[in-house]
């Protein structure tokens, strides 16, 4: 953004002169209205998020398209939130209690959220990798009738796929090693075993000791709803926005493989009942948390709906190819079933193909938005904090 825009749009609103105080009185009413409106919009949007036709099972909740809705939800709320905060009547409010404590905390959470965005983007590359492996399976099983060659090919790809999903998750969680043996023949890796990372799907771009679960846990530190009189001012929307941000990050991490997610379900969101959107978030949190616990026991990859499907279908098809190997030709009903499953897998791949890139781009947009708000808040703080020692 050219410097002139920057100055005009923001510095222009914040007065540098100490002796100019923008009149507050008439605008107080307006401010209260804005706060109420914000709260109302948040609950409405949340309700939309939760709404799905009754016949769609819960699993479909964390699908790619739902995640995109979730991110849209975040962007809308964030825009409104920023409007309230920045175009407020008295810019110096952000340096007064309780905001003088809450805003820096919010900024700190923002930085953590940025890292989560990056980790999730990295995780999406893994998902893309699974997609590509699945596409091999699909193309092998597409040919009719399915011969031995195709079955072997499919099996090889399936094995890579299932191992990748498992390995990534082992990297991701400290879950105990599954009993499942790696049922592939040791092809391609000579006895010298030169590639230890052979089955790792995507080179990891995340810092070594970084933990998604710990990061989110840290984001919930000090996340306390405003009490009493505090709740009537800007503290309330700040709290709301904080919770939304943490929730969105948490949901993303639950859905998409990220480094080190052990203990994700133990994270709680303090959402007091009087906040009208609290019920929705608590409900959602519980549902996702339960699914996560189930997943941890099974040792499967993230909760992303498409990935769950892929895993389920992968297992089925794996069995199919196994029995093909041992029993030879399979015709009739079994073949038809297999074809149907392969078609489902193709559909899942297609959804990934359509949705992953836009999802990545959306996460990038979320990233940018968080950065922008953070920068503007930092500038505002610096402008207002004139009595504090300068940065020299």
């Amino acid at each position, binding site marked *: *953004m*050219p*410097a*002139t825009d*920057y*100055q005009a749009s923001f*510095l222009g609103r914040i007065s*540098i*002169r*100490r*002796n100019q105080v923008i009149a507050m009185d008439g605008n107080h009413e307006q401010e209260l209205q804005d706060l109420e409106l914000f709260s109302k919009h948040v609950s409405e949007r949340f309700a939309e998020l939760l709404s799905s036709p009754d016949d769609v099972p819960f699993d479909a909740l964390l699908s790619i398209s739902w995640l995109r809705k979730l991110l849209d939800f975040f962007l809308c709320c964030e825009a409104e939130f920023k409007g309230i905060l920045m175009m407020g009547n008295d810019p110096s409010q952000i340096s007064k209690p309780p905001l003088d404590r809450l805003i820096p905390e919010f900024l700190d959470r923002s*930085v*953590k959220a*940025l*890292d989560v965005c*990056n980790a999730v983007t*990295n995780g999406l*590359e893994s998902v893309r990798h699974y997609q*590509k*492996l699945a*596409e*091999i399976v699909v*193309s092998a099983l597409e040919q009719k*009738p399915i*011969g*031995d*060659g*195709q079955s*072997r*090919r499919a099996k090889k*790809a399936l094995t*890579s796929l299932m191992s990748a999903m498992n390995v990534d998750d082992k990297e991701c969680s400290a879950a105990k090693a599954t009993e499942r043996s790696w049922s592939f*023949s040791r*092809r*391609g890796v*000579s006895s010298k075993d030169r*590639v230890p*990372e052979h089955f790792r799907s*995507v*080179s*990891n*771009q*995340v*810092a*070594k000791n*970084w933990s998604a679960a710990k990061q989110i846990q840290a984001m919930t530190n000090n996340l306390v709803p405003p009490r009493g009189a505090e709740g009537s001012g800007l503290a309330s929307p700040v709290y709301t926005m904080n919770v939304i941000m943490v929730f969105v990050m948490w949901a993303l991490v639950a859905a998409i493989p990220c480094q080190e997610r052990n203990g994700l379900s133990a994270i709680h969101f303090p959402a007091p009942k009087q906040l009208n959107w609290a019920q929705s978030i608590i409900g959602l949190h519980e549902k996702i948390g339960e699914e996560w616990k189930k997943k941890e026991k099974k040792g499967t990859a993230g909760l992303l709906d498409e990935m769950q499907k892929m895993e389920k279908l992968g297992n089925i098809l794996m069995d199919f190819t196994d029995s093909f190997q041992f029993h030879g030709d399979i015709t009739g009903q079994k073949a038809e079933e297999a074809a149907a499953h392969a078609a489902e897998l193709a559909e899942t791949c297609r959804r990934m193909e359509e949705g992953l890139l836009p999802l*990545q781009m959306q996460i*990038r947009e979320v990233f*940018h938005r968080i*950065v922008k708000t*953070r*920068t503007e808040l*930092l*500038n505002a703080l*610096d*402008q207002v904090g*004139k009595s504090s020692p*300068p*940065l*020299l």
Partner: protein
Amino acid sequence: MELPENLNKDSNGYESAEKIILRWDSTASEDARERMIFETDRQEADLYLQAVDEIQRSLSNVSISTSSNAGKNANAVDDQSKVNTTIQIAMARLEDEFRNILITHSSALETDSLFDPSSSSISTPSHHELEEDDTLSNDDSSHHDLLQLQLQHCESSDSSTYRSTSSIREVDLMPSEAICDLQAIAMRMISSGYLRECIQVYGSVRKSAIDSSFRKLGIEKLSIGDVQRLEWEALESKIRRWIRAAKVCVRILFASEKKLCEQIFECVGTDIDDACFMETVKGPAIQLFNFAEAISISRRSPEKLFKILDLHDALMDLLPDIEAVFDSKSSDSIRVQAAEILSRLAEAARGILSEFESAVLREPSRVPVPGGTIHPLTRYVMNYISLISDYKQTLIELVISKPSTGSRYSGDQTTPDMEFAELEGKTPLALHLIWIIVVLQFNLDGKSKHYRDASLAHLFIMNNVHYIVQKVKGSPELREMIGDDYLRKLTGKFRQAATSYQRATWVSVLYCLRDEGLHVSGSFSSGVSKSALRERFKTFNAMFEEVHRTQATWLIPDTQLREELRISISEKLIPAYRSFLGRFRSHIESGRHPENYIKYSVEDLEMAVLDFFEGYPVSQHLRRRSQ
């Protein structure tokens, strides 16, 4: 050659091919697992490839013969299935071979030869090292509340302007024999419909090669949180390292990977080598840029300006190469990210400059610098803007708006104003620099009011403004931007301060040496009041001693200025005293204890003036006049 109707005609060729394929089925035999065809023997490899070709031919024959039959021939279907199986076995084997060749020749880039110091930028700006701020005497505890001024030395070895022309340099990552083999294998895999496997294998092996190269280049995986937490000094060296590494990555590493993909997949079209290339480098490229991104969003503070400009310049320089290397549709996101980072860095630089200006204005220390000497703020600011003028080339393009100044008629006492009309034709950057000097003076004026002694206040201003002038004169770029008009204004200001000082101190001293009031009308013989005269001498002595005692401890660091001021004082003081002595000494000498009144000779005074502004206390006793 005619295509055979069925397989039987060609069965010998097919059968022997099949045999070869089956022999090397690693699911079937231990021996097949242990050895790699392409490592063993050139001939073996050729034979194997021929076998694969043979099988592929058969496959197309079978398809033709099957489809040309009216009804489904069970045998044909069986044959097709058998051939498919054989193909699959061959493809699996080739995949392993492919992987093996790649692994054998995938090691980290030899980076030592790549960091060629002579190949780094062509134009090196003359960085002057920032002056260490050392005038703060350590034993003076009253300065602890002053700012900590720890400007880093700029290392001139890493020049800041990277204006070298784009120099993409692809290296051979693999011997050409290996490339030929890989090409041969890829061709077969792709024509059998096993493209996806090929890409997967290629990507996974080359990615780990790039990872090792990254490690060698010292590219770390830091989270944004990490970068925010690190001390800026630590980050500076990381930035330096990153700049060096990024150049190697983009211009050599990635470019070479791209070339390798093009070579291996030469015969099969650009989409495929694009896909392989992106499969390989997308992740690492994102990792590389994440660091620069983290820096671009870190909190702004003045000391960060120059490294951020370095980073900006480096990235700017790399941008054409980035666009050349990542030119496909699928690499949009990388180009976009690089451009975003560049614009954030520019914004950060502008923001830091703004903040710096505010900080200079607001700098709140009230404890006056002892001796009226140069304030640390002055040094810091002048060093800072000298450095800014070194980065002029970049900043001139980045800084496009005028500084936000006070308005002349606002009556606001807390900000100075600057009239832009008289500064027509100056670049925004120059305006900012002038503004900074204006703001600095404004702040210094405020500080000068904390001196109890008005003379000292004037001296303080004189010292500091003079220092500003010297620094501007000392840097051609700075001088050119500030302009001689404003320089004249500044010069006038410190001369004015010198004059004010003299007036403040010496008027009253010289007042003692005036003629009026000493003559008494009346008697003819002695027209001078002896008592008044004695009073005059006493007063003069006392005043002079006081001034001498005090102002010896004051400091004018600049030798020439010190001299000039002393000379100016002498020029007024000495003749006045000499003439006073000349006219009135006889009256004192004719009375009692003349030595109490005429304590000093002209020479004594001349000597005493030399003590002024040295910054040291002197003994109380001036040399009495020698007799």
